[in-house]
């Protein structure tokens, strides 16, 4: 299989972000996502909270996308922006 240079960069980055064995999988990450999202939406820093979840979010685009979406909705709710449908 032959790689393009930009693919190679992605691959190297992906190897670099690989981490230790004792980290969370998607399921355990997902269980803590609501709690974490509330804290982050309140302004807490992701790095100070649950470092294993943070590590997983750095390596897993799927979980990260869901986390970001949840935080965005919670922030909008706090800011009174959720009544704008229609």
């Amino acid at each position, binding site marked *: *299989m*032959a*790689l*393009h*240079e930009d*693919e*190679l*960069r*992605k*691959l*190297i*980055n*992906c*190897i*670099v972000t*690989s981490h230790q*064995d004792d980290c969370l*999988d*998607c*399921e355990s990450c*997902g*269980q*803590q*996502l*609501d*709690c974490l*999202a*509330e804290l982050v939406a309140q302004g807490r820093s992701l790095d100070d909270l649950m470092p294993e979840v943070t590590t997983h979010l750095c*390596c*897993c*685009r*799927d979980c990260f*996308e*869901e986390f*970001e*979406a*949840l935080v*965005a*909705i*919670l922030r*909008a*709710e706090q800011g009174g*922006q*959720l*009544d*704008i*449908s*229609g």
Partner: protein
Amino acid sequence: MIERTNEQWLSDLTGPPEVQAPALEDLRQRLQRGIFYYLSRERSDLSHLATHELNHMAEDLAQDATLRVIANLDSFRGDSRFTTWATKIAVRLAISDLRRARYKDFSLDGLTAEGDTLPATSDALASNHSPNPEHATERSDVMLKIDRALDEALTERQRQALTAVALQDVPLEIVAERMGTNRNALYKLLHDARRKLRQHLEAQGLSTDYMLKLFED
């Protein structure tokens, strides 16, 4: 809409019909507003859709999400507000649907087909803007080694998964479905693949720091 505590949500949603029905409707509306916000404000890929189309999508998703929340009430542990937990379920459902729609034609077969990528060396040289020829040679040499490592260090399944997820940015969920596995198992498989690749390259003297430096823009 009444504000409920977690306990009130749980008791209302499992209560007699006259209590349950309004609670269900409150939940559904709440999820719909959250989903609509996400679709309309956070998804630039949906910006071509009209408001009524987004509303319709949000309505359908909120309906499904409400059913899913009710079916999973037992698993609510009270670590967050009930509505946050329910929104998490709705978000996963919405994002899953969007992923499936976007990648409906994606197939793993294309990833291993011969001749669908350019030859590594000529490509490396062609796209190599480094003014230093020694540097260029070093880069193509490392590219070949990485290319070979993919073949030597990984199983076919690992290579397929890594190619799709890390190189083509396909969501894990989609790749897992195509591979007949689930996202959790795929995550573990990818984790092993990355580790093996890293070890294989390090054994040849290619540290990740060195490679990052070599290929930075």
